[in-house]
């Protein structure tokens, strides 16, 4: 159980597919104009990712090595078509807002990367957990970006007004230029956090080494005293 929790955390934070691995940039930039769209896109991709991981993991001993990429793409595009039809039937407004980006989940690098790097080498249950973790990580990153963009660009979150009436929306944040910049600043913040964490770890190990050395020297001194 602990192993699976660790795997989920890996996908959600430590190895976030969007913010740390920097995969799947097209939907990240395009669908984050509003929190609603970002959430819909994230969940659609998560559904495809879980299903494709499950099936690729089940079939991993039967797919020949040479044509594996083509096989993965066929499996993924099958699920994408299913998700597309379901969304058209039950979430029509979201289907229209996301437009071409639903079929484009087929070429989302995150899904192919997880198929190749994880599902093709691991049993079924860990592959499903990996799909859930990575999918939620993708959704989390999209929603984070969308919150910034919608709040600054329209003054709302999920269509509810947050900023005071006097706030003049900075339209640039919902335009393409704002997408690139918001993502740039968020990834810079993530790198800053990771750099600080690494620095702390490095300092801690240095401190520990020094401490060990000191205690070692002390014991040596004691020994010397004894011999004298």
């Amino acid at each position, binding site marked *: 159980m602990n192993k699976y929790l660790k795997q989920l955390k890996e996908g959600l934070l430590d190895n976030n597919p969007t913010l740390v691995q*920097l*995969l*799947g*940039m*097209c939907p990240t*930039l*395009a669908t984050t104009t509003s929190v609603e769209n970002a959430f819909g896109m994230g969940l659609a991709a998560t559904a495809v990712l879980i299903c494709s991981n499950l099936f690729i993991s089940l079939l991993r001993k039967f797919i020949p090595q040479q044509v594996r*990429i*083509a096989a993965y*793409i*066929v499996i993924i*595009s*099958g699920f*994408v*078509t299913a998700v*597309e*039809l379901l969304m058209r039937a039950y979430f029509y407004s979201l289907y229209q807002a996301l437009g*071409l980006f639903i*079929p*484009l989940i*087929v*070429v*989302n*690098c995150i899904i*192919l990367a997880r198929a190749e790097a994880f599902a093709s080498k691991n049993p079924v249950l860990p592959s499903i957990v990996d799909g859930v973790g990575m999918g939620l990580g993708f959704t989390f990153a999209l929603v984070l970006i969308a919150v910034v963009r919608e709040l600054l660009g329209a003054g709302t979150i999920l269509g509810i007004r947050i900023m005071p009436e006097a706030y003049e929306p900075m339209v*640039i944040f919902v*335009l*393409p*230029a*704002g*997408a*690139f*910049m918001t*993502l*740039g*600043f968020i*990834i*810079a*913040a993530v*790198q*800053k956090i990771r*750099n600080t964490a690494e620095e702390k770890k490095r300092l801690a190990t240095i401190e520990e080494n020094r401490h060990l050395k000191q205690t070692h020297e002390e014991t040596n001194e004691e020994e010397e005293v004894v011999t004298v």
Partner: protein
Amino acid sequence: MSIGNVLLMMFSAVLVENFIFAKFYGCCPFLGVSEKPDTALGMGMAVTFVMTVSGAVTWAVYEFLLEPFGLEYLKTVAFILVIAALVQFIEMFLRKFIPALYSALGIYLPLITTNCAVLSSALLIVQNDYSFVEAVCFGFAAAIGFTLAITVFAGLRSRMRHADPPKAFKGFPLTLITAGLLAMAFSCFSGVKL
């Protein structure tokens, strides 16, 4: 559609509805393969080649295979397979008959299968109900827009190689912010109605 209209549509696909800066199709190679201007140009040429041919082939597949049998809902699966096969075929063809072009485009060709610009241009052609000539022209023009964007961007990035940004901004964040500034420049076309 007259020739004038086709030309306007092409102009619009290159600048106004630029695949990168207005639509975000093909951002992965745009951010990934834009370190040097000459590799960016190579990638752009490979994309142009594949997108023009795939525009024609996917149009024919849709018109003569999917539509008559009522299989329109399979278009995503069919198009991605056609594109993957086409890329493989073009690679083999070039290696055999035009080795010079093959060695120039070589490493970029396989990457194109998962380039969403190619798939989205095929889907857009179907969505907009283009005729055969329009489909080929649209694929070509959209790819030229992609090439323009990636080459200009690579030029900017090569100038920044010696810049000394804060540590947190090094690498990808700075690339994204530069892309944002370039997108701002391109957004001046967005008001143009053709």
